[in-house]
């Protein structure tokens, strides 16, 4: 009996060691791969010894994997371009991304892993909930954090945290300014989903900003998720209010119904939507004459004609010909994030041997001074709160295709 027990313990121990050996060899494999990647870039020459290490965290597997993978590819493309052009301040840039499966706890673990690796600043995290958790850690370390796509307001609470994308409610401000700057209308109406925080958040900031800009909001009409098919009452009110433009901070399905019913009611205003409208042309059997002239804010527009977007799109397609499905706003946000880091690091004279906290101080001071022409907007500048200001990309549907407005 006793002998059996001992045997069991011995066997169990043997198994544990076997597993440990497995994970070890896995790690070994990984290091080899990155070593190979390094030897490829070693052909490039840099003015200074040492590397600047940028870490990133995001979902590379799981439900949100498409976001993380797009960020990874976008960032790697920017890093490759920067290294080919001599790096940042003459140092080679090293980029490493860890998977968090869109889970806050795993994200914090990944943050620790990256710190052990020697990360000096963090380009991440990709999704909002993990980002909140990691930004607390970053604050404690004074680690510079730039999230490409964390749009929730509290992602960037610490003063060392910044973001590339617009926060959700900020789209309202951007939309109001866009209408005023381009003299699209003087009287506007808003139709929003009162059962959705995304929609009401944008609507509130839009109305507040419109008031300060002298833009008259003549009608504010709401609907709810349960009541999102018949909009005739709202449209009648908007039509009677004399609005020239209807702002729609909503998703595309109700938007398509609103436009159809407005047409039926003989009402043809200008339409401007938030980024929730993106995808309206992807609806099955969409009547393109209905959405003709519709404009919406979008972080990334593949057909945009500006130089940066053209360089990004061509670079992405030639570098990742098999992964063009990731050519989306997340890749664009990450691409801009790396270039913003480059600009700030050059401004703040960040070097390879600087401590995390010193890098954080230098970057934080430099971020509010730089201006970056990016894929997601031109002339991007940052406030001390970490919010970007940029001319938004506005898409317009012309002849059934999206164009830059």
């Amino acid at each position, binding site marked *: 009996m006793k002998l059996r027990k001992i045997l069991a313990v011995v066997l169990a121990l043997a198994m544990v060691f076997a597993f440990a050996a497995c994970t070890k060899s896995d790690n070994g494999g990984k290091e080899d791969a990155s070593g190979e990647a390094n030897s490829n870039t070693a052909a490039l020459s840099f003015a200074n010894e040492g590397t600047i290490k940028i870490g990133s965290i995001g979902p590379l597997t799981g439900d949100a994997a498409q976001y993380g993978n797009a960020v990874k590819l976008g960032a790697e493309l920017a890093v490759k371009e920067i290294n080919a052009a001599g790096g940042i301040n003459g140092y080679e840039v090293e980029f490493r991304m860890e998977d968090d499966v869109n889970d806050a706890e795993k994200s914090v673990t990944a943050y620790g892993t990256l710190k052990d690796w020697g990360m000096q600043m963090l380009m991440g995290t990709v999704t909002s909930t993990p980002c909140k958790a990691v930004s607390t850690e970053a604050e404690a370390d004074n680690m510079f954090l730039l999230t490409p796509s964390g749009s929730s307001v509290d992602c960037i609470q610490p003063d060392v945290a910044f973001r590339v994308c617009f926060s959700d409610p900020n789209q309202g401000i951007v939309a109001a300014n866009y209408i005023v700057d381009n003299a699209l209308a003087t009287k506007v109406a808003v139709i929003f989903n009162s059962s959705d925080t995304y929609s009401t958040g944008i609507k509130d900031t839009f109305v507040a900003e419109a008031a300060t800009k002298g833009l008259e909001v003549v009608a504010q009409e709401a609907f709810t998720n349960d009541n999102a*098919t018949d909009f005739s009452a709202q449209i009648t009110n908007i039509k009677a209010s004399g609005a020239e433009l209807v702002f729609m901070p909503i998703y595309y399905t109700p938007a398509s119904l609103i436009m159809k019913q407005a047409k039926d009611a003989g009402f043809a205003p200008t339409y401007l939507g938030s980024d929730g409208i993106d995808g309206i042309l992807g609806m099955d059997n969409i009547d393109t004459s209905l959405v003709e002239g519709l404009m919406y804010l979008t972080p990334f527009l593949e057909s945009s004609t500006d130089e940066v977007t053209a360089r990004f799109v061509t670079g992405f397609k030639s570098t990742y010909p098999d992964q063009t499905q990731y050519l989306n706003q997340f890749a664009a946000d990450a691409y801009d994030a790396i270039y913003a880091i480059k600009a700030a690091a050059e401004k703040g004279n960040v070097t390879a041997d600087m401590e995390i906290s010193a890098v954080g101080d230098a970057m934080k001071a430099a971020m509010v001074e730089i201006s970056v022409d990016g894929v997601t907007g031109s002339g991007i500048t940052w406030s001390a709160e970490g919010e970007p200001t940029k001319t938004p990309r506005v898409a317009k549907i012309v002849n059934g295709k999206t164009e830059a407005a």
Partner: protein
Amino acid sequence: MKFLSQLISGISLGSIYSLIALGYTMVYGIAKMLNFAHGDVIMIGAFVVYTACVTAGLPAVVGVLIAIVFCTLLGVTIERFAYKPLRQATSLAVLITAIGVSYLLQNLALLIFGSDTKQFSSVVSLSAVTLADGQLTISGETIVTIIVSVIIMVSLYLFVNKTKPGKAMQAVSEDKGAAQLMGINVNGTIALTFAIGSGLAAIAGALLCSAYPALSPYTGAMPGIKAFVAAVFGGIGSIPGAMIGGIVLGIIENLSKGYISSQLSDAIVFAVLIIVLLVKPTGIMGKKINEKV
């Protein structure tokens, strides 16, 4: 002019509620059960029209006819396999089965057509009428919906009151056992009721999606519930009641959206329903039936 416009939209929305409410009210009146799958039969009808007209490119009229035939068969099939075996069961069991059928249809549609919202092409080719220098526009869909609802309502009323199968329906509604003793085929009559109700559902689906052209597997759910309310409002079991209930509901909903608050419209609709039922528990047109002891 704004008031008139709100009123017309209300009547248009109300006519669709009426058409759907007819299906609820007929089945309830005759089989004494709440067929909660009715809203989903409407959705299936709309998908059949979509497949016939958009995918196969058939003319709208043909598409609607195919949908009517398909939904009639579907209604009879549902009745035969899901409800008929439960004829002697408690009404609760039948109600749960109806909810089950509702989910079955929704998930079948999800499986076949996917969850993406599809834009429905209108089956109505009538162009809009503009009155008073463009201040009032009535869409072709609105006109057709109102006309079709009235025609269906009148012919259904005549059918139930003047024809033999219609009278058989009334007899079954009053007393199944006695009707059977008088030589009426009770099962056949109930199947006929389902056939008519489901055929109407196909028309309602085509009109609903022509007016509000976003089609998804959940399209029928909310209008189905609202129409059920309309049927109760007008007096469940009564055909003119379904028409009046639907139109009154549509008008209240639209006027409260237009003049009080677009967020509170549902609350107002249901508050009115509660008041009506407190004052007249059988609904506007409902007859008070003495319980047989």
